[in-house]
């Protein structure tokens, strides 16, 4: 960790790179944004953006449960609740006859409302407001290590399951005909999304975590010619918005997470206009 830090310090001759907290935040961004690009592409392809949003909201209840149980690291209760939440949503989706957005909307509101009720019961909601807007400047080295492990795990999963997963996305009937266990793959993906959202939400923030998942992937769709290509575009756009947003936030004195999302949004609109012009020709 210190080795990496000294490399960053040596190769970045900028004012902001003099500060350890900026270098740590940069490392975290370098890990989180490709992860989000990767997962976001599948979230968008599977029309699951509302699902990941609901997961983000459920983090509040996860924190509240952690507070009630007196756990020091809310991450544990957040991940536990998010997994339960993800499985509940897909369970209700499979067995009920309400449409997906209704079911997810119901769960999303429950996750948010329950969290608000429990956390403001003692009038101290302000303590948790950092979870709403994210706090990437205070990321610690062990947390960066955790992000690194998660990124590696997701990349390995992707390499192993990419083809099956793509098949499930495009044509579930054909997938089950080819002996792919469609439900298992879907559950696995829900779990990966839940884990990613929960591990990174402290730094990205409940309010905008979904934008960071969806925007780069949506912009990539405007540019990419193939499904595989859209992953790389999404990771690239995500990485670029992350780094430039962080640095810009330093010079402008703005909140890092919000600046990153605004840059991703600007890129989305640029690619949107570009794709319109290309289609018009």
């Amino acid at each position, binding site marked *: 960790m210190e080795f990496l830090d000294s490399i960053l310090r040596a190769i970045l001759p900028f004012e902001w790179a003099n500060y350890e907290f900026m270098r740590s*935040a940069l490392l975290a961004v370098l890990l989180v944004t490709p992860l989000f690009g990767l997962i976001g592409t599948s979230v968008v392809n599977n029309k699951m953006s509302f699902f990941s949003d609901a997961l983000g909201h459920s983090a509040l209840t996860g924190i509240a449960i952690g507070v009630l149980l007196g756990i020091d690291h809310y991450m544990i209760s957040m991940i536990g609740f998010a997994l339960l939440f993800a499985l509940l949503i897909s369970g209700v989706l499979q067995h009920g006859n309400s449409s997906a957005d209704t079911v997810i909307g119901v769960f999303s509101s429950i996750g948010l409302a329950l969290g608000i009720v429990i956390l403001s019961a*003692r009038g*101290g909601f302000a303590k948790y407001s950092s979870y709403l*807007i994210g706090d990437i400047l205070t990321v610690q080295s062990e947390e960066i290590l955790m992000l690194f492990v998660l990124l590696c795990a997701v990349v390995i999963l992707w390499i192993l399951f990419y083809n099956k997963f793509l098949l499930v996305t495009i044509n579930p009937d054909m997938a089950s005909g080819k002996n792919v266990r469609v439900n298992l793959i879907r559950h696995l993906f829900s779990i990966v999304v839940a884990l990613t959202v929960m591990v990174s939400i402290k730094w990205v923030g409940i309010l905008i975590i979904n934008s960071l998942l969806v925007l780069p992937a949506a912009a990539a769709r405007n540019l990419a010619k193939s499904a595989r290509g859209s992953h790389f575009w999404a990771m690239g756009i995500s990485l670029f918005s992350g780094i430039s947003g962080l640095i810009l936030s*330093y010079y402008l*004195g703005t*909140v890092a997470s919000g600046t990153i999302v605004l840059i991703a949004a600007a890129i989305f609109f640029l690619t949107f206009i570009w794709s319109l012009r290309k289609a018009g020709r």
Partner: protein
Amino acid sequence: MKRILTACLALLLILFGGCKKAPEKTGYTVVASFYPLYISALNLTQGIEGVRVINMAGQQAGCLHDYQLQNKDMKTLEEADLFIVNGAGMENFLRKVAEHLPGLTVADASEGYDLIDENPHIWVSPKGNEYQVRSIAAALKAGDPEHREQYEANEKAYLEKLEALCEEMHGRLDGLSNRNIVTMHEAFPYLAAEFSLKIVGVINREPDSYPSAREIAETIELVNELQVKALFAEPQYSASAADVIAQETGAKVYTLDPVVTGEDSPDAYLSAMRKNTDTLLEALG
């Protein structure tokens, strides 16, 4: 249709008719908006029969900057004879309370106090707390003249304790050579003024906000330049930003309590301030 209407009307009468007859009120009920005022009121009403003190925001609420008035609070206030508030902008919800309960007597504990930059954290200095105790005692005496003498005796006793505390703190802190401090929030200007500490930087300039990268960097420069040894966080808020600055500058993070949460005991303010004195000595000595 008519029958349903009648039934509804009857139901309404049953539901709300009963509410009008409030139980016979006994004694004198004092509601303090939050913890430090509650502790002062507790001292002033000690041993007086029939006087009840309620802490509206509860023991764990902390500062009231962002406090959301809840239904139970309005219910508490409805039963109150006297509502003690900190004033100086601490209670954002006061106007709403006045609209709903125009008959409630509200005592502003900071009225007439010489504010530093509109800052409401007056009680954090023992002298400021004494001022508030006097204001609260005056309101109690005016509102409940029956127990006037008892209030006066309690006031005298508590003011003596606070005076002794202030002298003790001066005795211990006046000899410090390093007086530059950095605090997490804008909660300590009165304490600093009383004991001539110099607050060279505040990490979170707005209450309940998080500092931007620019602000953290500026604080780091300041800490390095002035060789600040101690950063003071509060037990009520996360110290993560202070930890980041400490890592980068070699300054240490200590906990200074603005006494907005704590135990339900009359001596809570005194013991919290003694602990703060210990912390200041350890950090700056």
